[in-house]
């Protein structure tokens, strides 16, 4: 079984994002970029399924700028076998990405597509579900445990207040939550090996997908600033403030 793992290049989670003065977006020039953390968990899960003898090949896919090659090389260093870049400088929105991935999925016919539940830049939390809908495949979102057997996947999902277990027919889409696994550290020999792995390049037009954005961003602003409060000398003062000033207890 092949596993397709879509990965997104995003501003590193440790970077303090700054809104551009002209309100057109956030500053991404000269900012550290990394693989979306949830996608890293997705790559790790796919590699573990391969190590367990369930998957035979892992294909990482990224859609976006040429620089997404770096993100794909990271996926290859974690253990993906080959990579596909769908290169475009268009403003890609989740529906367009889902359509691109659906086109790739039809070419590659994977048994599973595993991807992050959301990207930490646009926080949309849509791509996996949309891909599932476009392919008419089942989905298991927010996965914290995945077991594959007999043409089905049993998935434990993180829901409000606990966990639920569902069983889905393969092929299927799984989106990862934080608890699914802890991604391994990438070793230098594996980074070197990743450089030699196959990386194919497509354009959206090659896949017959129109990626025209449907949402227009009118402006991006900073949220209302939170000003620093006061330091109180002791616990009694704190409790008095919480009772009488903030009125929260």
């Amino acid at each position: 079984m092949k596993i397709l793992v879509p990965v997104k290049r995003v501003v590193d989670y440790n970077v303090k994002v700054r809104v551009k003065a002209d309100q057109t977006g956030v500053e991404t020039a000269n900012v550290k970029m990394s693989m979306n953390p949830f996608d890293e968990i997705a790559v790790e899960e796919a590699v573990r399924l391969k190590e367990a003898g369930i998957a035979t090949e892992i294909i990482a896919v990224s859609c976006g700028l040429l620089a997404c090659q770096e993100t794909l090389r990271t996926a290859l260093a974690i253990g993906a076998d080959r990579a596909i870049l769908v290169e475009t400088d268009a403003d890609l929105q989740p529906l367009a990405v889902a359509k691109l991935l659906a086109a790739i999925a039809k070419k590659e016919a994977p048994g599973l597509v595993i991807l992050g539940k959301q990207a930490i830049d646009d926080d949309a939390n849509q791509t996996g579900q949309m891909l599932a809908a476009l392919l008419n495949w089942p989905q298991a979102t927010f996965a914290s445990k995945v077991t594959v057997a007999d043409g089905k996947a049993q998935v434990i999902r993180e829901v409000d207040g606990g966990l639920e277990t569902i069983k889905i027919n393969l092929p299927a889409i799984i989106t990862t939550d934080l608890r699914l696994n802890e991604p391994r550290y990438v070793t230098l020999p594996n980074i070197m090996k990743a450089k030699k792995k196959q990386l194919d390049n497509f354009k959206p037009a090659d896949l017959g997908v129109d990626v025209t954005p449907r949402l227009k961003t009118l402006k991006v602003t900073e949220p209302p600033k939170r000003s620093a409060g006061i330091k109180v000398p002791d616990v009694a003062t704190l409790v008095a403030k919480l009772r009488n000033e903030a009125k929260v207890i």
Partner: protein
Amino acid sequence: MTVLVIAEHDNAHLKGATLNTVAAAAQIAKFGGDDVHVLVAGSNCAAVAQAAAQIAGVSKVLVADAPQFADGLAENVAAQIVALAGGYSHILAPATPSGKNILPRVAAVLDVQQVSEIVAVESPDTFVRPIYAGNALATVQSSDAKKVITVRTTGFDAVAATGGSATIENVTAMADAGLSAFIGREVAKSERPELTAAKVIVSGGRGMGSGDNFKILEPLADKLGAAMGASRAAVDAGFVPNDWQVGQTGKIVAPQLYIAVGISGAIQHLAGMKDSKTIVAINKDPEAPIFSVADYGIVGDLFTIVPELVKELG
């Protein structure tokens, strides 16, 4: 230009998130003087339909009552929503795990780019939503004929649960898609409220020193009826489970009161809790970044301050 809200429920009770979502729907509907309808897709869910009919401002409740909707499987519920979509200009669901699971599936079938987690309505096609874990707010305009939207419940005050008198209409249930099956549910056995729904949260960071030391936060959480959370540093150190994590890659929370204990205030943590109404920080380092967002800070040893606080609360 009628607005459809997807009710969140467990077949017996309507969940509160529905009321915040109806509030957002009402804001959209008022531009054209339009109606708000609610869809209850469930199994043996008559009580939920009755409750939905009482919601202030709702004129009609559609009920799809069939076994295949019992457990909210995305494939089945999405197909039902798509079947009804023709009559609606806007389809809204709360941005809860359930709403987030189902609605993008609806949007893709309708060839609509969903707008996720709106916190404000500017016009029937323009909405405000947080990006980068709330570090920026984007105002976006949708060019799709139909709008599919999830609503961040903390962005809209709930409408009244009573006072309405909507008509209830049964709709033809779509067949089981046969793609997925529900196996079971394990609800966390905790006396404490859920992290994302709690009015008060007590969170610990790396400063707690160990998982065992989190026990000193329990009496404080008990006193305040609080949920317990943690920073990524505390989770990474193995002190507490992953699902306690508040932050950019964990849970985004906005309680009335957030007490950060031994948390330095890394960006990734602040992103997850800075919309809390009142923030209290307890930290031994007076320079810790957490103090720059805290309303009230105490500099000192958490192991003496926390017990004192418990005592002071009586």
